[in-house]
């Protein structure tokens, strides 16, 4: 795993600066410990994307441009028997005619995700984790030495990003074999893509069984260094950003935002 140390410094709040020698040494030590402790795993599968409107009235889809391929249309409210969407989720009633996505039976209402997935007819769902090792290391350091816990936390955060990049690269390759291009990965919690969808990811990818990731009641993943994401596949090539910050509408206010960090660079 190719961990970007600048990411670690950024998570630690250094905002583009390089830490002093003491901290640098500690970062190296933490990385070494983490590499011993992690058990990286992943699971991903490809699914078609279907689109609907909540009121079943036909209209052009969000951001659909003339000339773009038409999306598969399917009535939403009176589905054919046997094709029912089984993951029930209440939708906001205020806006009839909202665009919905369905991936692997998961109905999604999210403008940000719709934007991310425009042009996409299928998507990969992925989940990746570093395993429980980092959590134990952090819990241990929280008792023994808090400064180390903080550095482990930052280093593990950078490491899971690196691991996701690695998994994402495999997906990009597979997509290329199909002549398709990946969109930046998009996780529940980004923009208005509700964290609630973690439940659907858990079921669809069987993350507990396959990679040992479980959800808490408040929908946090445990091991904590775990990520779920949608990666859209489009026939349209685009500057493919691997990372997600840039497409996140919370990037502005997020104190860990890569965008913000760049802006604040001296």
């Amino acid at each position: 795993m190719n961990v970007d140390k600048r990411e670690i410094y950024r998570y630690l709040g250094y905002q583009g600066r390089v830490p002093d020698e003491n901290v640098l040494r500690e970062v190296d030590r933490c990385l070494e410990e983490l590499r011993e402790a992690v058990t990286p795993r992943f699971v991903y599968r490809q699914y078609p994307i279907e689109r609907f409107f909540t009121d079943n009235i036909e209209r052009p889809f969000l951001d659909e441009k003339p000339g773009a391929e038409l999306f598969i249309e399917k009535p939403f409210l009176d589905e054919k028997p046997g094709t029912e969407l089984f993951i029930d989720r209440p939708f906001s009633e205020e806006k009839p005619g909202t665009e919905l996505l369905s991936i692997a039976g998961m109905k999604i209402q999210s403008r940000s995700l719709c934007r991310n997935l425009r042009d996409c007819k299928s998507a990969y769902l992925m989940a990746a984790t570093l395993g429980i090792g980092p959590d134990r290391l952090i819990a241990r350091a929280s008792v023994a030495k808090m400064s180390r816990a903080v550095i482990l936390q930052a280093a593990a955060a950078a490491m899971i990003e690196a691991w996701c990049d690695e998994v994402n690269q495999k997906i990009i390759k597979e997509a290329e074999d199909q002549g398709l291009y990946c969109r930046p990965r998009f996780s529940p919690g980004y923009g208005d893509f509700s964290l609630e969808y973690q439940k659907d990811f858990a079921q669809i990818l069987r993350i507990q069984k396959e990679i040992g990731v479980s959800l808490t009641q408040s929908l946090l993943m445990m091991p904590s260094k775990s990520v779920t994401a949608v990666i859209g596949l489009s026939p349209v090539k685009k500057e493919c950003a691997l990372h997600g910050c840039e497409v996140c509408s919370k990037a502005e206010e997020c104190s860990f935002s890569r965008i913000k960090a760049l802006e604040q660079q001296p």
Partner: protein
Amino acid sequence: MPDRTLMSTEKKEPILPDPSGRRPLLERLGREWLFFDGGTGTILQEKGLKGGELPEKWNLSRPEDIIDLHCGYLNAGCDIFNTNTFGANALKYPEDLSQIVEAAVALAKEARRRTGREDAYIALDIGPTGRLLEPLGDLPFEKAVDLFGEVVRIGAAAGADLVLIETMSDSYESKAAVLAAKENCDLPVLITNVYDSTGKLLTGGTVDSTVAMLEGLRVDGLGVNCGMGPEQMIPIVKRMTETASVPILVNPNAGLPRTENGKTVYDVDPETFAQWMKKIAAMGVQAIGGCCGTTPEHIRRTVQCVRGTAPAAGHEALEVQGEQGVPFVPNTPKHRTVVSSFSQAVEIGEKPVIIGERINPTGKKKFKEALRENNIEYILTEGLNQEESGAHILDVNVGLPEIDEPRMMETVVTRLQSILALPLQIDTSDPAALERGMRLYNGKPMVNSVNGKKESLEAVFPLVRKYGGVVVGLVLDESGIPETADGRIAVAKKIYEAADRYSVPREDVVIDGLAMTISSDTKGALVTLETLRRVRDELHGHTILGVSNISFGLPQRAIINAHFLTMALQMGLSCAIMNPGNEDMMCAYRAFLALSDMDPQCMGYINAYANAQRTKVTTAGLPARNSMADGRNDGTPAADGRNDGNSAAGGRNTGIDAADGKNGAGGTGTGSGSAMSLGPCIERGMGKSAADAVRRLLDSGIPGLEIINNELIPALDRVGKGFEKGTIFLPQLLMSAEAAKAAFEVIKETIQGGEGESRGRIILATVKGDIHDIGKNIVKVMLENYGYDILDLGKDVAPETIVETALKENIALVGLSALMTTTVVSMEETIRLLREKKPDTRVVVGGAVMTQEYADAIGADCYAPDAMATVHYAEKIFG
């Protein structure tokens, strides 16, 4: 609440013949080949189950498909088949759990009727909850037991023949499920776990540690399923045949999964699968079947190849000529003495092991204080230090008359096992505390102790029988401590016989020969040593001693202790309860291993002492403790013979002394930290140097309080200001805080009564639903530094707990942390409840998602964007 009393759990019903003519499972399991069914999910997907759909729903909506699934396997010749209840628990089916489980059993019965396979056994299938248990996750252990227990009760009442717990990837959840099964029915209980290609559970357990725990819980069979194909399972199966004594069960997938068009597919065809299963059968396992991707055809061929006979009637056409079958070999008892943690197994008897004795309040003022004040961190630090020093097992004694010992035992055991990987020895004379500790323990514990008194035998052995454990048997009874070895051996025999009566294997007893101080009876050591020898030579048992008792009342106890340890080891001592931080005794231990051919190439000894500078010499002529800076990874018998880092918490490098001392002088220009003054030490975050600097100041006659006010606090303030200005960053801020803490500790020791003045008491908690506590812990370190007493309530804390504590302790300031938008709701609820019940308490909030606006909206008194802000607010409140 299910009945958890001791005696009731061990009533084994006499095995009665079933009216259907079905023989009791336990008459057959382990005595002849038995076959499990194969995959469920794969087949249901073919029948139209969607990727994320809950398969158990089909018990109600598509019963014929489920019957069909069972019939396929029954016709293929399986003997044990699973109800469609893998994911059935009240978390996933809060409303219709009973209907789903009852239907599942009814459908299985119907399949049995339709196929005429009344001889087959219906296994109530139990899979994981999908949630991670506390403290790393948020599902309380007892809640997990209740969830499983509910399913077991429904399934057993509906007529299942056994409970099969499967696909468990976490040892702790496995334990909860087995206990639930045992406490809620009298059916046989089998369990199979998922291992990965490194031979470990997803949460780090090894075959050794898992087998030890499960056999301790008295399962009727154990094994491996899912995760991989038969070929990849072979090393795991092999290790099981070397460690397990109960029947071994093997249910592999049809190879490694591959994804095709969003579907998981498995490539190993029935014939290849059966050939591999034949190999596995010949390794000495007792029951086999399949998991994901296997079909009735896989099972049919496996039955044919292994049993070598025709499968069920009606399918003779498929019988292959000339199948030899594999001769059945029952499993044999291994008689190993093993204790385990979530990830490590320590075998007793191979090589002597060290049991750290420091978690014990006896004679320790600070430890007692920590217990009274619920200062768990102090206790945990004692554990980490002993692991660092080379202990293999940790004794845990938290007994103090004025505290709730069972509760404290539960807290300490669960917290310790979440941060370190050493097995624990539950040490208490209170049976209730013993049971809490054993029950909540994630593994097979050591139990300290039982003795020859009737009352003790009757209290302790049922617990050992139920939860598993290696129990320390003290050779004393109603008539006291025998003065002779003869007398002690007689009591030892009595304890072994009691073990027999309670069906606890004799190898799970280690005899404590009782070390008594030679200052009152100079023959004491000889009697103890002779007892050790005779237990080894005559009873073929293992022994244990609280080694340092031998020198009580004598000067320079380390000299006697170290030499007595060597003598005892020579007499076969298997476990030494001692302080692993006592370098004299560690020297004796390592030397003994090297001299007794228990340290290959003397590597343990060399690693420990090659770089040791004999700068300081104790009276015993042994190097003093602090000189062994690098003597860490000493090759002493770590768990499973290795310390491979995967068991995260098992790594020796706890970092307690890291970033300090030897490298701390970097950039100071002095070339050595030793001469540095206190201020710079703190600013640079050098704990040891800071402590040294304080000692020098104290030696030169400056009072402690003056040092605090003129040196320590100003240094901390400089760092804090730098942090606020953005010239110093969080890691440095904390390192400085830690250095200051080290300095405070030194001063505290010199102040009369050992107490510094408290500036105020503050509650800190991460709110309900949130299990990330790093932010809260940062704030805690800072506040402590500024002299505040912190009542740390931990993470995932209910509003009621916070309010109750605030009321009870009359707390003026509460700090709340929340990481996620979703848990800010709990924060709001906590504040609302506080305002209602204790309106004079101020609330400061922080956390990743928190903003001033948010804080205002939920009615907090202060928003703290960082750790220093909380310190400032506390200063404002407490003046």
